[in-house]
């Protein structure tokens, strides 16, 4: 196994006027390739903040972060964008699809930013949508799809550029139990194929799919335990 994420003593400070708030108060995490990690913790404990830093969407106030052997701290804006484009697939609680674009175009989008040709993009976007079982919904816009289907589109988009890491911030938070389980089955499959998955949730039922559970409280890691995933 090789290390894919190496985080040391990361903090995140939010300053609102005179008020200072440490969302992360020194977090250390090492995640190996092909792990399936669930991050749990109460609301406001810093889960999303940590995810955003791991996903290179946000930068820590202090601490070191080495991703795939590269020091994220030294990357400029464009390099971070490229990491987000090629190495990371995001899945959000609120789906975050472009409302005016159909499923196919939403999934195609990361490939546009990779500079792929139109035909290559369409081919890969179609494959990716077919993989999540939406071959017959490509031309639908988000508001013409159910919540579960929207999240599948988001998963297809996250996967389309073959990222090494899937980051999912409460991906089932807006879904009913059944559709939530379907999405989780999708993740299990991806993990089997070799993807590293990091998932934020506060549902025990969801977390049981992971091999490892990291619990966060008040911006600090409370526990970090390994388990056998049950699907």
């Amino acid at each position, binding site marked *: 196994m090789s290390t894919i994420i190496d985080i040391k003593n990361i903090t995140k400070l939010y300053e609102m006027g005179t008020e200072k708030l440490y969302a992360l108060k020194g977090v250390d995490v090492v995640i190996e390739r092909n792990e399936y990690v669930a991050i749990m913790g109460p609301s406001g404990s810093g889960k999303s903040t940590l995810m955003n830093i791991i996903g290179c969407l946000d930068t820590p106030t202090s601490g070191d972060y080495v991703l795939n052997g590269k020091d994220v701290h030294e990357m400029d804006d464009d390099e971070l964008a490229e990491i987000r*484009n090629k190495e990371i697939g995001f899945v959000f609680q609120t789906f*975050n699809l472009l409302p005016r674009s159909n499923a196919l175009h939403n999934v195609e989008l990361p490939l546009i930013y990779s500079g792929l040709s139109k035909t290559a993009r369409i081919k890969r976007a179609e494959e990716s949508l077919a993989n999540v079982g939406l071959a017959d919904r490509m031309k639908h816009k988000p508001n013409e799809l159910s919540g579960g289907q929207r999240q599948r589109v988001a998963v297809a988009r996250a996967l389309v550029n073959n990222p090494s890491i899937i980051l999912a911030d409460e991906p089932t938070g807006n879904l009913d139990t059944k559709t939530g389980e379907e999405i989780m089955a999708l993740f299990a499959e991806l993990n089997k194929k070799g993807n590293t998955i990091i998932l934020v949730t506060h549902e025990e039922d969801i977390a049981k799919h992971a091999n490892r559970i990291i619990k966060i409280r008040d911006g600090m890691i409370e526990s970090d335990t390994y388990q056998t995933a049950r699907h």
Partner: protein
Amino acid sequence: MNIFVEIKESFIIAYNAITGNKMRSILAALGIVIGITAVTLMQTAIEGINRAFESSIGAIGADVLYVQKFEWFGKEDFEVYRNRKDINLQHYEFLKKYIQSASSVSPTVGSPRTVQYGSLSLESVFVIGTTEEYQKTVGLNVDEGRFFTSKESEGGYPVCMIGTDVKNGFFNNMNPIGKIIKVGSYSFRVVGVIEKQGSMLGLFSLDNRVIIPITKFYKLFGTRRSVSINIKANDLNNLEETKEEVKSIMRKARKIPAGGRDDFGVNEQAAFKDTYNQLTSLIKVIGLLITGLSLIVGSVGIANIMFVSVKERTKEIGIRKAIGARRRTIMIQFLIESVVICLGGGMIGLMISFPISLIIDAFALPTAMPLWVVVLGLFISMFFGVLSGFFPAYNAAKLDPVESLRYE
């Protein structure tokens, strides 16, 4: 290449954003529409005036000097000119006798008169009295028939040349040669028709004229009028020397003592051009101010709309950044949107000004929108598109992805 894919995508986004907000886009582009309409119409009008001027100024002749009592665009009081002695045929003959650097010299006098043919009558036809050399001096071509001869000129024969306006007024498809027309109450035989000259600056026609021998003119209409002496220089490049020669001969003819001031003007086309250029550059400056102002107002309008557009799409920007859009990508996206709005406005402006230019062409000035004006219009639109889009696009590009995603 990455960038082409991004640019292509940006055009699609721009298209969707603009058509998704049609009314707003149209309102945003309004200032540019007005600005471009104004710019292109102004340029087209100036072009038209220039063309009219160029074709009119040709009739004056670049290498011809006009010795007259008045100076064109002279700076002295009108009184000064009016009190000068008339220029008469003796001065003409003196000049003709001594001048070395001229290839031809001819005197002209003229006044508007009523001209008749049978029961047809034309008012205010300009009747010119001159010699046969006039044709060479000012470079007239004859359409039909011939110019009168030196014998006819010196002998004061009742013969005339007519302009095309007179020909069309009287003769339609008939052959005018040999016909007898009446100038005032005197009969003249038509010997030739002068090629169409067009109009002087669109103000009056150069074809509404009758040319008769100057001796006849004097006999019938009197001698109490000042002559204009037209002198064609041997060489356009030595026009200044010819001018000096003309002045010194005229001073002798007019017996002006050494040190005395000239009491005549030696006029040339350049005086017209100078005045014309002054006038049009004034028009240009005023036009530039007006159109510049409307373009700036338009540009501010578009910048405003673009700021709103960026604000509204904050979430979208966050999503795009989260999946790999660079700053450059977002920047290009909004710049292209604003350029497309401005270009659209510019095209609408051209679609408005083009038919107007056709109307101007039909009723006022011979003009046509030159291609370069169209290109200029589009170029200016593009320029203002970049200008108005720059700051909104820059703002969008540097948005923080996490905060943008949180934006509702």
